[in-house]
C-alpha cells in the first residue's frame, strides 16, 4: 500500500505534541471519539492541555481519561454532565471549563477551519453566555459575536481513509469530526480501515484529504456504548 500520510503507530502520530497544546477532539459523548489517540496522549503524559470537545467524556473514557489524569488546564465544551471528576475539578478551581452552546461551539470550530475569525449568532442572547460579548442588531433581532477556534492539533475518528487522508465517517459517528479536521493545524485521523487511493468514491468523501496531515490505523478500538437501550420484540 502507498505510505502517504500513514503513521506506523499512535506514538509516532502524536510524537510532537507538547505541554500546553490546544487540541480539538471529535466525538459526541463516546461516539466517534478517537479513543486510541486519547489513550496515547494519556500515556505520553503531556500537561496543561486545552481541549475543545463537545463533552468532557465520562470519568474513565474519552477525553475524561486526560481530565482524570490531571493533564488538562482548560476544556471548551457544551456539556460536562456525565463526568463527575470534571465537575469536581471545575468547582475546586483546578480546571477551567468554558461552556459554549453546542451549535455555537461547532460553528466556532467550522469558522476557525474556514478562516473566519468571528461570527454573529442569536444563540445565548440574554443568558450568561452573552456576558462580555459584543451585541449587534440585524433586522430588528439581537445577536452576539462569537470567536472562531483553531487548534495546534485535531484528533478525529473516521470509518475509512485512503493514504492521502480522504475520510469517510459512519452514521452518527461523524458529528464534530469533519469540522475538527478543518480546524487543526495538524489533524490526525484514527481510522478503522485504510483502503487504496482511488477506492473511495470521490462523490462519497466527507472530509477531503487536504485537511488531514496524519492517519493511523485504529482497528482495535472498543467503541464503548454510553447508554444501551433496546426495545422488546
Amino acid at each position: 500500500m502507498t505510505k502517504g500520510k500513514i503513521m506506523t503507530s499512535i506514538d509516532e502520530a502524536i510524537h510532537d505534541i507538547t505541554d500546553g497544546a490546544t487540541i480539538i477532539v471529535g466525538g459526541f459523548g463516546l461516539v466517534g471519539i478517537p479513543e486510541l489517540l486519547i489513550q496515547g496522549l494519556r500515556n505520553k503524559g503531556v500537561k496543561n492541555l486545552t481541549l475543545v470537545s463537545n463533552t468532557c467524556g465520562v470519568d474513565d473514557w474519552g477525553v475524561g481519561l486526560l481530565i482524570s489524569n490531571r493533564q488538562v488546564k482548560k476544556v471548551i465544551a457544551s456539556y460536562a454532565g456525565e463526568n463527575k471528576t470534571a465537575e469536581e475539578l471545575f468547582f475546586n478551581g483546578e480546571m477551567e471549563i468554558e461552556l459554549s452552546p453546542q451549535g455555537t461551539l461547532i460553528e466556532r470550530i467550522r469558522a476557525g477551519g474556514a478562516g473566519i475569525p468571528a461570527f454573529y449568532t442569536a444563540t445565548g442572547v440574554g443568558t450568561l453566555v452573552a456576558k462580555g460579548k459584543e451585541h449587534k442588531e440585524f433586522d430588528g433581532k439581537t445577536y452576539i459575536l462569537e470567536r472562531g477556534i483553531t487548534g495546534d492539533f485535531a484528533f478525529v475518528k473516521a470509518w475509512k481513509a485512503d493514504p492521502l487522508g480522504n475520510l469517510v465517517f459512519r452514521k452518527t459517528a461523524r458529528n464534530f469530526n469533519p469540522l475538527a479536521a478543518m480546524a487543526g493545524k495538524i489533524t490526525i485521523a484514527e481510522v478503522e480501515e485504510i483502503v487504496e487511493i482511488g477506492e473511495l468514491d470521490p462523490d462519497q468523501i466527507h472530509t477531503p484529504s487536504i485537511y488531514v496531515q496524519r492517519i493511523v490505523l485504529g482497528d482495535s478500538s472498543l467503541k464503548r456504548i454510553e447508554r444501551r437501550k433496546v426495545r422488546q420484540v
Partner: protein
Amino acid sequence: MSNARLKIVKRAVHEIKDGMNVNLGIGIPTLIANEIPSDYNVLLQSESGLLGIGPYPLEGEEDPDLINAGKETVTAIPGASFFDSAEAFAMIRGGHLDLTILGGMEVSEKGDLANWMIPGKKANGMGGAMDLVSGAKRVVVVMEHVNKKGEPKVKKECSLPLTGKEVVSRLITDLAVFDFSSEGMILKEIAEEVTIDELKKKTEANFSISPDLKTF
C-alpha cells in the same frame, strides 16, 4: 413512568402534527416519541447528526455508531439522513425545525426557560438547548409542575441561569397548559382533577385564564 410524567407525555404528543420536523430533548420529551401516531410522517431530528430517528434497536442489533442526543442507542427509519454537527445546528439555528419539545427546571411568566445548570452544584452544560430555543419555529417546554419538595417551578422570575429569554411558546405540566404572548402568561388547559385555586397555590407566576379554558 410516574402518573405525572405519563399525563405530560400524553398531552404533549398533540403538539406534533403530521409532516413536521421535530427535535425532542432529553428526559420526558424523549418519551413522547413512542406516542406519535404510526400513520404520521414525522421526522425526528437529533443533534448527534440524524434526521429520522427510529425506535430503540432489538437486543443484539445495537450499533455503537448510531445514537440520539441523549447518547442512547437508536435506529434510523427509511428516508433518514446522517450529517455532521455543523449541519445539525444549521437546521436548528436556521429555523428549519417546526417544533422542539424540551424539559425544564424553571419557566418564568415571561416565557424564560432555565434548564442547564445549578450554580455551585451541577455544571451540566447547555448542550444544544440554547441553540434550539433561539432557532426552532416553536418551543414547547414539558416539566412537572412542582419540584420534589413541592415548590413551584413556574415562577415570576427564574432563579437559575437562563437557557433563553422569552423563548417558550407553550408550557405543558402535569397540572396545566400555558401559552406565552406579549399579554403575558395565559392558562389554556387545566388537568381534570385540579381546581384553579389549587393551581394558583402551586404556581408562583401570575397568569390570566383563557375565556375558552379546556380540561385535559
